[in-house]
């Protein structure tokens, strides 16, 4: 369960180039839902997403995750929550170059100190799940768009998060791959994971999978539509 209360995020505070990215956003995102954040670029979607995902701390306001206030936590502790709760999929694939697909999937779990063989088996199983285990030993930059996309999803799942956050995931995919991506997201949602996607791509917000549509503009929440 995630509740946002009067979230405000300011960049370059007190400088001439001060920028208010999010203006007092208040939102109850509930739990285990499929949420799409809709809005033009520069509307504050990404910033809001990174605040929800415990990547950035808001300048003011409160975030409550599973009835615990986390907005005042220093980074050391936020990271732990982020690692255990969220899986991320970025606009670019953001795979680490020069490293194999398998290692790319494993990297987020490295600091946890899990036994290496177990971790590797888990990563392989995920690659298997998305039918790209044959590419496990290929370097990230040798993967095709579709393969990279699936490796990225596998990476987001390696720490077994309950919430998946995706920022403009289809921006660099063709129509076919975009549909495939949404299909996988639908499958994960059915398995009980909460999905939060920020996008202005109709394939995403008209897919019929979302049960909550949030519209944003100029750093403010414009509309909240519950489709469930």
């Amino acid at each position, binding site marked *: 369960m995630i509740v946002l209360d009067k979230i405000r995020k300011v960049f370059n505070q007190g400088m001439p180039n001060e920028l208010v990215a999010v203006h007092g956003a208040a939102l109850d995102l509930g739990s285990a839902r499929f949420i799409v954040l809709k809005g033009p670029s520069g509307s504050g979607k990404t910033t809001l997403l*990174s605040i929800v995902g415990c990547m950035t701390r808001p300048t003011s306001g409160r975030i409550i995750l599973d009835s615990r206030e986390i907005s005042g936590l220093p980074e050391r502790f936020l990271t732990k929550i982020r*690692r255990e709760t969220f899986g991320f999929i970025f*606009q*670019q694939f953001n795979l*680490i*170059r*020069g*490293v194999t697909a398998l290692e790319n999937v494993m990297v987020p779990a490295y*600091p*946890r100190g899990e036994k290496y063989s177990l971790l590797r088996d888990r990563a392989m199983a995920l690659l298997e799940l998305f039918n790209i285990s044959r590419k496990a030993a290929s370097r990230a930059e040798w993967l095709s768009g579709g393969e990279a996309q699936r490796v990225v999803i596998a990476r987001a799942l390696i720490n077994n998060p309950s919430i998946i956050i995706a920022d403009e995931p289809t921006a660099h995919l063709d129509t076919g791959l975009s549909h495939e991506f949404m299909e996988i997201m639908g499958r994960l949602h059915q398995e009980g994971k909460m999905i939060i996607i920020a996008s202005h791509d109709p394939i995403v917000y008209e897919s019929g999978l979302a049960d909550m549509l949030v519209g944003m503009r100029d750093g403010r929440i414009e509309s909240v539509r519950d489709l469930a």
Partner: protein
Amino acid sequence: MSLMVWIEKQRNLIDFVLSSLLRRKGKNFALIAAYILIVFVLASVMFLTHALKREASIVLRGAPEIIVQKMTAGRHDLIPKTYARQIEKIAGVSSAKTRLWGYYYDPLFKANYTLIVPELFKYEEGGIAVGEGVTRAGVTAEGNIMPFFSSDGKLMNYRIREVLPADSELVSSDLVVMSEADFRGLFGIPEGLVTDLAVSVGNPQEVLTIANKIKQQYPDTRPVIRDEIIRTYDAIFDWRSGILLVIFSGALLAFIIFSWDKASGLSAEERREIGILKATGWETSDVILMKFWEGLAISLTSFLVGLLLAYIHVFFTSATLFEPVLKGWAVLYPSFRIVPFISAYQIAVLFFLTVVPYTTATIIPSWSAATVDPDLVMRT
């Protein structure tokens, strides 16, 4: 956190460090090569000077306890034998022996020899014993004749009766040992005068007192104490490695600036990479730890390899690369195998001189890399 988890975490981080180091092979190998070179040169200097210092202090323990020289107008002058008899009477002096020695410049081979007269010379007049270096410089051998020009211009021929053992070259390389009569004849030194005196003292604690007494009794002399000689060698070699270090510190500094620059000049690619790590669940201290392992992988490897190479250089090849420096313009250069006097202390000093500055130089850059905001990857 249990120990196994901790170890596994460190190993995971090392895995990642190696992946990312190998990805930028060229740059990192250049860095490691420069690092190895630095360690190699420093370690070679320290190994060489320390080993020579130790060897000098062991070997020279047999040198005369006090050498008494006469000074005339500020110059070392011949000393009358009567001084020896007077000095022997000082309480505590067990003996005062005369020494005859000097230099001879051989115009044929452009080499400087040291000519000495031992207390007891084994061979008859006309026979000499020479050091290994002399036979090399003069292309001669045992049984051959060696020509010398005396002070009044006459040609004197001496037969080499013995070549001093090769393993003593460090102290005997340029020696020409001859009888007293030959020496006096060659240089025209009158009877009754000698080069200097070697005084031995019964109780080692009294050496200083006796040196002072000699100085009082004969104000025109200068006593040189053996401890002073050994101390002088210690100081010479400490000074030498110190000064080389100071000269070398320019290179060291340049290297440190280079590694600082390399560590802090994060490319956009590296920043993005660390952003990815942090966004997907690495904490700042994990990244700092990862950077610590990166620094350790580079510095430990370079340190150990540099150390190995320096050891081989100094003790297997007798510091060939430094020979021009040690040799200078000398024609005679002893060929000696240096006895490897090394200690953990030297390793610690080297470590402090190379690894510590490198590590310090990378602390701030690796911190600033580690504090890249995780949402960086979302904003770009």
